């Protein structure tokens, strides 16, 4: 077997794969955040909690209702999206005319509520979720577990499909126009408030989908979302929220960089994304793909 800079290839490619998977979650969550922010002018702090709820719905379904992973992959995002619609209709809607900061504070309040309730119900320790695709294939230079391969491929497809819908379809054109000038879009006879609600539901559903995919890899845990969302915020700052493709590229790229850091300098792996954020802010304050607003 060959060695690269004294690192065995198994470890290198293993971490690279894990980095890609983390990157997939960063991409899916920052995508949802960007789409929601574009239309609602709200940074959805609850995004991490909704990711966590997605995982918990899947776990709950498997544990008590016998719903398997593949069904949960569809059911769980729908359930969480419905909860998102309720949240938007009852609370978020009232804040659109105010400073963006109030949206952040409100959704932060819901993070505390959801996390507190799940911690009360399930404790702080993780709940294991059975791997639906056991086994894997030996590629010669590394062992590829089927499930991890599936996560990378599926999340890539989801991200690209989202990009396609927003950038290339009529529905996406409405969405982009609504982001640019909601009043004018309304004047053309499009139901903007409903579009806003559905956009929020979509972004939240995406977060829940990522949560279901994360369940077999990490343990299902009430705090899994809040730790992730802060990293995703840094990802959003690095990429800027201007471009859909930018969010996808930044998410996957930073995941890979984080994975590589784990191989070469593990002490810095928890902070590397924040360090990159600092550098990007010093060099290009608007973010790699963003425009200052």
């Amino acid at each position: 077997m060959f060695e690269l800079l004294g690192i065995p290839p198994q470890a290198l490619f293993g971490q690279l794969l894990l980095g890609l998977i983390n990157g997939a979650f960063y991409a899916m969550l920052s995508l949802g955040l960007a789409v929601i922010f574009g239309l609602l002018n709200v940074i959805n702090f609850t995004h991490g909690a909704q990711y966590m709820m997605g995982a918990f719905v899947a776990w709950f379904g498997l544990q008590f209702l016998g719903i398997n992973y593949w069904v949960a992959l569809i059911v769980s995002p729908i359930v969480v999206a419905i909860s998102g619609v309720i949240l938007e209709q009852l609370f978020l809607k009232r804040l659109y005319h105010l400073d963006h900061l109030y949206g952040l504070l409100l959704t932060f309040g819901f993070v505390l509520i959801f996390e507190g309730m799940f911690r009360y119900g399930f404790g702080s320790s993780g709940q294991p979720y059975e791997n639906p695709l056991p086994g894997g294939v030996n590629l010669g230079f590394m062992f590829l577990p089927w499930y991890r391969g599936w996560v990378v491929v599926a999340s890539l497809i989801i991200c690209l499909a989202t990009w396609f819908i927003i950038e290339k379809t009529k529905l996406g054109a409405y969405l982009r126009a609504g982001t640019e000038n909601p009043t004018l879009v309304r004047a053309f006879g499009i139901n903007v408030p409903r579009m806003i609600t559905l956009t929020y539901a979509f972004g939240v559903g995406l977060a829940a989908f990522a949560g279901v995919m994360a369940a077999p890899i990490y343990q299902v845990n009430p705090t899994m979302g809040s730790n992730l969302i802060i990293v995703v915020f840094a990802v959003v700052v690095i990429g800027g929220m201007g471009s859909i493709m930018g969010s996808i590229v930044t998410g996957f790229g930073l995941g890979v960089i984080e994975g590589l850091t784990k191989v070469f300098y593990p002490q810095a792996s928890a902070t590397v994304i924040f360090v990159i954020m600092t550098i990007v802010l010093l060099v290009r304050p608007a973010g790699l793909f963003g425009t200052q607003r």
Partner: protein
Amino acid sequence: MNRFVAFGLLALLLVAPWIGVYPVFIMKALCFGMFAIAFNLLIGYVGLLSFGHAMFFGSASYITGHILKVWGWSAELSIIAGVLAATILGVAAGWIAIRRQGIYFAMITLALSQMVYFFCVQAPFTGGEDGIQSIPRQPLFGIIDLKSDMTLYYFVVAIAVGAFLLVYRIIHSPFGQVLKAIRENEARATSLGYNVDRYKLLAFVLSAALAGLAGSTKVLVMQLASLTDVFWPMSGEVILMTLVGGIGTIFGPVLGAFIVIAMQNYLAGIGEWVLVIQGVVFVIIVLAFRRGIVGELMALWDRRNKPAPTAVQPAE
């Protein structure tokens, strides 16, 4: 009006331990009151929402705790060292964070504080998950014994009153007026020839230093520095205190700190529900009482004294 309230509160503070109030409770609330005042200096007077103030509070408490326990310096020197550490961190973090405004500023400060948190998890001197425990209360100036809660109480009251007066002075100085101008209309302030970034940075550093003072004093009182001090829920807590009391009011943050600390004390027995209740309070205030308790009272007072309706909307 303000002056009467201030003297009344000061008198109440001075006699409180003699009329049966538990001094450690007041000291803790005063420390968090200072923390909230520091945070309010940014959100209330410059309009910058920092979601990472725990990094200054926590790092100062670690530095002070380490110096008190391992190096055995006297109380005031340890506190000064903690404040210095927070100030330096404030310069670095502020220099990075003021490059963006609004929502991005909040996300950047949150990310930076998470970085500091991970540093504290790994650094050897912080004691990891255990934190720094049973920190001795070294004597003040090397001679005045602070082991008794009563002596310490008056020291902490002196610090808190000093911090309060300092912030009051800052807000009512020409510097404070410029800060408010930046909050109201940044482009206008720039066009009037003010170097907006420099003002913002100075306000940020002052706020960081005061947050550090709060953290250092808290270590002296509670004799404990732990990861809780530097983790993001702490940043959320100080936001909650300021929101409850009233953003941009002088007394609001202190009142908010007393209310939140009292709430935590009474609810300590029900564990995770504290989080839920704090979240509910957040939601209610953001939806219905954005001015906070003091802000709403002041609005009520204004309405009763000025019957003529004014067109000017209160700043939010």
